[in-house]
């Protein structure tokens, strides 16, 4: 797959604080690449550096179509995290203006705008003033604005924030479709379930540094170990002594046992000692969501693995 954008050793500081260091990844044609991380991890800063809204202190950002130093703005669609549109203008006016700024032919832009409005259930709203639209409708128009010029690279910063489930599905479907049609998509989010469903590859960032980078399948097999949740009156030490248990988390009578990577579930279940009181037991894999929360709360669940694969 053709690499549309590559970020190499990106570093950025605000005053004395290092907000990004050594960030490297690339985005390829036809794939959905996700940047994940808790609030303040540096997702938006990374994206702003890519878009040339900020300038990196270190590292390089390369676009496939880059001639010289110029960012190929006309080939990129961008939906920023802090987003809105001019309020006292009509939907069509603003869409055509943004298309014009991208040097996209206006008659084509108009057709696409009408088609998208129809698709997003906004048919007949093209002459309505932006301020009369609901927040959800506004977000749909913003999304249309970012794709109206058929970008080759689409950068979406938290595209799902503030959307109802129906609109979320709509966006997900559209983003998938765009990727299938060959658009390279870079999307940032903290909604792990959505990312898990959509992304081909992911880059997890925390405190400005890489935590995980790889394809979704690799990440799952590498990081998503088994965990066993037991409810019942138990002694923490007994549980900790069970083989292949790396760590135990206790919440009153609920214990979560994190198992090592090479555990075989059937065999492991057999080694649970007799004296363990089991009211309920579940055995499943750690989800991306949990990995994410662990990282965000600095619990070092992944530290071992992280170091190994860093």
């Amino acid at each position, binding site marked *: 797959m053709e690499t549309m954008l590559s970020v190499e050793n990106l570093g950025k500081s605000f005053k004395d604080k290092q907000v990004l260091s050594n960030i490297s990844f690339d985005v390829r044609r036809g794939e959905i690449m996700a940047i994940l991380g808790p609030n303040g991890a540096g997702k938006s800063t990374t994206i702003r550096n890519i878009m040339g809204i900020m300038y990196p202190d270190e590292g390089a950002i390369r676009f496939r179509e880059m001639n010289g130093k110029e960012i190929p703005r006309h080939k990129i669609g961008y939906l*920023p995290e*802090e987003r809105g549109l001019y309020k006292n*203008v009509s939907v069509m006016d603003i869409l055509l203006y*943004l298309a014009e700024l991208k040097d996209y032919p206006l008659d084509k832009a108009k057709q696409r705008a009408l088609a998208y409005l129809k698709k997003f259930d906004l048919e007949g709203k093209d002459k309505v003033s932006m301020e009369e639209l609901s927040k959800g409708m506004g977000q749909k128009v913003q999304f249309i604005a970012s794709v109206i010029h058929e970008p080759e690279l689409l950068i979406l910063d938290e595209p799902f924030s503030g959307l109802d489930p129906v609109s979320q599905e709509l966006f997900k479907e559209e983003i998938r479709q765009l990727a299938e049609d060959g658009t390279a998509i870079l999307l940032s989010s903290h909604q792990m379930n959505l990312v898990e469903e959509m992304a081909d590859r992911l880059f997890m960032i925390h405190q400005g540094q890489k935590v995980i980078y790889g394809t979704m399948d690799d990440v799952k097999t590498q990081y998503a170990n088994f965990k066993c949740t037991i409810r019942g009156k138990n002694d923490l030490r007994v549980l900790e002594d069970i083989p292949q248990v790396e760590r135990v988390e206790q919440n009153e009578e609920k214990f979560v046992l994190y198992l090592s990577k090479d555990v075989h579930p059937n065999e492991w279940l057999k080694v649970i000692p007799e004296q363990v009181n089991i009211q309920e037991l579940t055995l499943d894999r750690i989800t991306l969501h949990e990995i994410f929360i662990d990282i965000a709360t600095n619990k070092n669940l992944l530290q071992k693995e992280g170091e190994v694969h860093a």
Partner: protein
Amino acid sequence: MRNTKKVAKWEIKRNMKNKTYLIGLFLTPVLMVGFYALFSWIGGGDETETEQVDVFINDQLEIFPAIEETVEQSGFDWNLEETDLAEADMEGALEDNEDTAYLFIDERALEDGVVPVYTSEDIDQFFTNQVQLLETPIQTMQMAQLGLSEEELAFIFRGVSFEETSSAAIGGNGGDSGTAESGLFTGESAERAIPGIFAAFIYLSIVFTGMAIFQSASLEKKDKIAEIILSSVTPGELMQGKVIGYFVLGLIQTVISVAIILPILIWQVDFPFMDYALVPELALLLLISVLGYLLFAAVFVGVGATMTDVTTAGNFQGMVMMLPFLPFIFIGPVFSDPNGLMAQIGTYIPFTSPGVLIMRLSLLDEWPWVEIIIALAILIVSVWLFMKLAGKIFKVGILLYGKNATPGEIWKWIRA
């Protein structure tokens, strides 16, 4: 540059589709005409308008033709007629009349120098002064009675005139201050004043329209569209687009104002404005206006980008907004002495320079070219400098959501 044009076009279009702007566009000149009408209505009575006075003269000395001639020359709005009513009949004759006067010119005028004048209760306020003019023909007759020759009479009536020469005139500096002030609308000085007034009008129009840049600069921030726009254009292009867009909007305002006001002015005041306005001097005045606009536009767009919203403007931002009004404090000093110290100081301060220069050049017959060139140089450098500073502030400010920048922060951005 192409992006700048697109942004400018958008700003124009956005405003032209905005009802508030459109109402303002037409309301401004209509208000101006309204105020003009109001003032001329209120001030109508005590200005130059005089009412016709019927003047009846009981002439015992056969002086009527001489008086008729004097009145005709003076251009008074008098309706002269001879009468043979006696002084005793005055009460009845004047009772029901307005603007009527009876003069009794008889032996008393020659012997005692007294002419009884009976006027109606209601009479033009200038009449008392005007009637003094009749002194001359009566005096002539008095002199003739004394037996003086024509030459002697001519000599006496030549009187004594005081020729005034100011020190400025001796120094060869022209000394035009007196004449300029006395005759804004007479002869040659009108040639200066009209283009000046025209330029001042255009200048104020575009600068005041340009004040909307203040709001426009923070609009992207307010509507959170800054990053979307900046993904297509650079901050510099966006800023220049706004400056140019509002310049064109100012011109549109000017054109519409002129289209509404000028016909009314020409109809009301019988004066060939256009012949005087469209002279080569106007070009320089317009250049000064454009530079003035660019200077204020730079300041507005820079400072505007430091706030989230005009309604949250702090003291600092509010003060900046008052800058275009600064030349108004120079109106008094400049009009009383267009070459004075205050006028010169005002010429060299970039923010007052355009306003003061337009005022001075309208008043002066001979333009102080050295001062004009220095002032233009200062203006051009200031425009360049402020545009650069505004660019730096704009670049950072436009992405600063949710808070107003303090002067300290702005200073940091400038140094960055």
